[in-house]
Every structure is written in structure tokens, then in C-alpha cells.
């Protein structure tokens, strides 16, 4: 399933407190959380982001809390993929678990700017910057993790496994 959208580019260490401030942690649906996504970093984001858009970040994207509200807010806002130089580990796990595609590609990040359009093919592992015409190759996710992503997240994946076990 190809992804094609406009880039919102941010820097290093985009933390979970700016992705979804704690004052909104008594909300839990993606729709509610999306309204406050990135609020303390980019107040205009939530209102202007379009379904299919792509967030591009630097090092250690999603650092800080384990709050699943962070990738939920991003997914709820319609963001189709997050591309970063590197991800903090709990955010990385959470994104996979909720079926939010994420890719680590330092070179793509360095050569991409806000407003660019990217075309991403998760299965092929390619990112194309439509402005520059450059193509980047991303190391494929481990098969087990790809299985979770392809199932739509950890819950659908687990339901399938529980059914296979007959439990």
C-alpha cells in the first residue's frame, strides 16, 4: 500500500510531551488526541495536517514517555508515516503496535524539507522525494515485526495467534 503525502519536518528529540502534552492524557481516542497533536511544538499542525501527510524528524523521535497517546495522536491526525533519523524505543514499539508505519532513514531526512512530497513503499522499502527526484532505500523491518504491521497492529496479530492456538 503506497503512501504519498506532504512533509512536516521537525528537528531532533521531538519528545512525547510536545507530541501530546500531559494535560490531554485524560483523553484516549485517536480523534480527540489528534486535535492536540504537536500542539506545544507547532500550534498550527493539528488544524492544517491532511490525511496522508508525513512527519519527518531527526534523531531520537518520540523520546520520553511510554504514552501510546503519542503515536495515537499522530495516527488520528491522519499522518500516514513517520520518517526519522532514529526513533526512541518505546515510541518505535508503540507505533508498530498500533499500525502506524515508521521508517528510519537518515539520508532521506537530511535531504527533505517541509512541504516536500514523499512517495513511500513500505514493502519495497523505498522513499522517493518528488521534489528532488531522489530515491532512498530503507532496511526492511524484521519479518516478525512486519507481521505485526501487516496485521494492522499487535491486537489483530494477537487475535489471529490466539485463534490459531484455539484459545
Amino acid at each position, binding site marked *: 500500500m503506497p503512501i504519498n503525502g506532504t512533509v512536516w519536518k521537525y528537528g531532533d528529540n521531538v519528545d512525547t*510531551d510536545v507530541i501530546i502534552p500531559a494535560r490531554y492524557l485524560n483523553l484516549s481516542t485517536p480523534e480527540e488526541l489528534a486535535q492536540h497533536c504537536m500542539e506545544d511544538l507547532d500550534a498550527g499542525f493539528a488544524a492544517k495536517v491532511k490525511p496522508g501527510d508525513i512527519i519527518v524528524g531527526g534523531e531520537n523521535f518520540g*523520546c520520553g514517555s511510554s504514552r*501510546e497517546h503519542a503515536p495515537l495522536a499522530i495516527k488520528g491526525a491522519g499522518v500516514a508515516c513517520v520518517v526519522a533519523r532514529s526513533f526512541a524505543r518505546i515510541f518505535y514499539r508503540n507505533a508498530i503496535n498500533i499500525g502506524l508505519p515508521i521508517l528510519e532513514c537518515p539520508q532521506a531526512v537530511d535531504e527533505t524539507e517541509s512541504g516536500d512530497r514523499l512517495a513511500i513503499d513500505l514493502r519495497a522499502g523505498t522513499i522517493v522525494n518528488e521534489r528532488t527526484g531522489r530515491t532512498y532505500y530503507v532496511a526492511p523491518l524484521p519479518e*516478525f515485526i512486519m507481521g505485526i504491521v501487516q496485521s494492522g497492529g499487535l*491486537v489483530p496479530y494477537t*487475535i489471529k495467534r490466539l485463534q490459531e492456538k484455539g484459545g
Partner: protein
Amino acid sequence: MGHTLAEKIIAAHVINGRQEVWPGELVEVNVDLVMANDITAPIAIREFEKLGVRRVFDPEKVVLVADHFVPNKDIKSAEQCAQMRRFAREMSVSNYFDVGRMGIEHVLLPEQGLVAPGDLVVGADSHTCTYGALGAFATGMGSTDIAVAMATGQVWLRVPETLRVVYYGELQPWVGGKDLILYTIGAIGVDGARYMALEFAGPVVDALSMDGRFTMANMAIEAGGKAGLFACDQVTRAYVNGRLRRPYQEHQPDLDARYARVLEIDVSKIEPQVAFPHLPEHTRPVSQVGEVRIDQAVIGSCTNGRLEDLRIAATILRGRRVHPDVRCIIIPGSQAVYLDALREGLIETFIEAGAAVSTPTCGPCLGGHMGILAAGERAVSTTNRNFRGRMGHVDSEVYLAGPAVAAASAVAGRIIGPDAL
């Protein structure tokens, strides 16, 4: 080739038999304990219900703690707690801790003897790594992981590499676990241990109290770490014996274990540390802080809300007054800590000094309640994060420090160490 602590504990929990594990491997493990709190449980419960299982894998191995937005700060928070309370009842989870009988989760669980050396613990809170101080592999995850763990008693893990940090030399006055870990994060950066297990060792660590070890392990995540481990020793044994209701497994790292990196730190030159806004890695020795006036001082949290921390604060506040321009908020980390502090006269010291003393709660640490900052305000805090907007308005600032610096700063009205009082 030998193994690190993380590799050994994970190997002991791999499903379907004993085997060695190596960094980078993806494994599925049995967990000894699964935990969630009032802000992470609602999503976990929602996902759990989607799984279609009717009960948790083992009610004795699930822990639910109301600590973040409690006592409930608004209707939505009250509804989240009500939901968690209902779930605990339906699932016969007896390890359910509510207002008046709780503490901040990472202070409470060790105190209650719920975590043992050698355990593999997952919690829906990033500071679950705190239990590494007990020689347990403990790591924070999101609500969906915890939902699946509650249903199946299993999680998938990527075996981490280990970064070993050896602390040697002579600890200086007022330097404690918080200063050591802040110094370390300053040295390696907020992603210096990304995806790695930290292993803390050395003669300084051997001599450190459990409270100091909990503080260090607590902030492993602030360097990006998956876990922050201490090997079990007589300090650990003294702490757990009498608290634990089950046998436990001690692990030691092998002498020929392979570490991704070994860092040796001479503590002799380390002063009390202060982490400047807006990253925990922006550390400076307290003598190099310059003039930083503060509006608020917070002493508490899962990082520094234990009895030893309160004793240090009381030593400094005794016979002194909180500066007229400062709000000093002190939060014992659990009911037991609160009661001990009361019996030792610490609470009286705090109130006589002009500090506010609160029931256990995470409160201001994450900008929830009990001490939020307005635009332009500054706090010195014994908490663990100082990202932009962490404690309130996006234009407020949080400086991280240990209890000695926080208490001294509360008196002075600006950030100083106790020696400068």
C-alpha cells in the same frame, strides 16, 4: 563468551525452554509482572477487550496503580480511574492501589514486595526501568503491549546490547544517586543508551543505598535505555528479605560478558548536578549554574520521593524558611514513606519551613496537577524530565536536580548547592 545481566534475565524467561540469548535477537518471553496506571490503563483496557479474552493471564501478576492524576483532578480523570477500578474488580486483580492506600507506582511496587530480583517486568510507564535496581529486567511499554501482556502473560522483546557504567572514586558531600545519573546522562546524551540496557557497577554503586539505586535505575530511560540494571548484592537482599513473598533468582554478569561499551566514571570530581531546560542531558555542576531565580521547588516523584530523599531535604530545611518568592512542594512517594517521614518529624520540619506537603501523586512531574507553572516561571525539581512544557506552560522552565540542591534552592530563591547556603 559470557553474558550480561540483561541477556541472562531475558534468557531465563524465554518461552519454551532455556537458551542463551544474544543482542539483536527477537524473542518471546514470559513476564512476572504487568503494570499500568490511571492514564495508561484506559487504552490498555480498551485493547484488552478487543482481544476477546475473558480474564487476565494471572490476577496475581497484574498491578494497577492510580497515581498520575490522583486524587482525581477533573471529571475525565475520575472516569479513567473508575474504569481502571471496574476492570480490577472484574478481573480479580487484588494488586490494585487507590487513593489513601497507594504510592507513586515505582516507589510503591518495590516497597510492597511485588518485584523480585531476577524478575522480568513490563509496565505501561516509561519509568518501569526503576525496578532494575532490584536486579530485575524491567522495561516500559505502551498500553497495547500491556494489554497483550495482561491477556497472555507474554511479550516480544529485542534483546538489547548493554552499556556498562562503572563508578569509582570518592563521592563528594551531597552527591547522591540523582547526581550520578544526571552526570551520566550528560556524558552520553539522551540517546546515548538508546535501545540498550544500562548496567551500573563499581565500588561507588556497591556502597549506594537502595533509594539511591532506585533513583539511578529510574532515569535509564532518559538516556534512551531499555533497562537500568544493578546486580543483586547484600544491599538488595537486605531490602527484599521480609518484603518478598516468593523465592527469587539472583543473576550476576559474567566476567567475560560482551558489552557494547564500558564507561568508567571517577566520581571524585563530581559535584551535585543540575540539568538545564529542556533536556535531561543539559547538565552542569551546581557551582556553574550562575544566577537562576526560581518560582517553585518540587521534591518528590518516582525518582526522588523516597525516605532518604526526604531526610536530605529535611536536613537542609530544618531551622530555615523557604524563600518568600518560592513555592516549595514536597510529595512523599507513598503512604509508607509519608508515615515514616511523619514519625521522624520531617513533615513538621517541612511545614515549619513554609513548604507544602502533598499526598502521594505524580502530580506536577508531568504537568498534571499539584503545582503547574505559568508562562515565564521556573522550577527546580527532583523529577526526571524537563522537556518544553513538561510542568505547565510551554514558556516555563524545569531544572532537574537532587533533593539537596532542590531544598537549598528553595531556601535561597535561586539554584544553589547546600554548601552555598
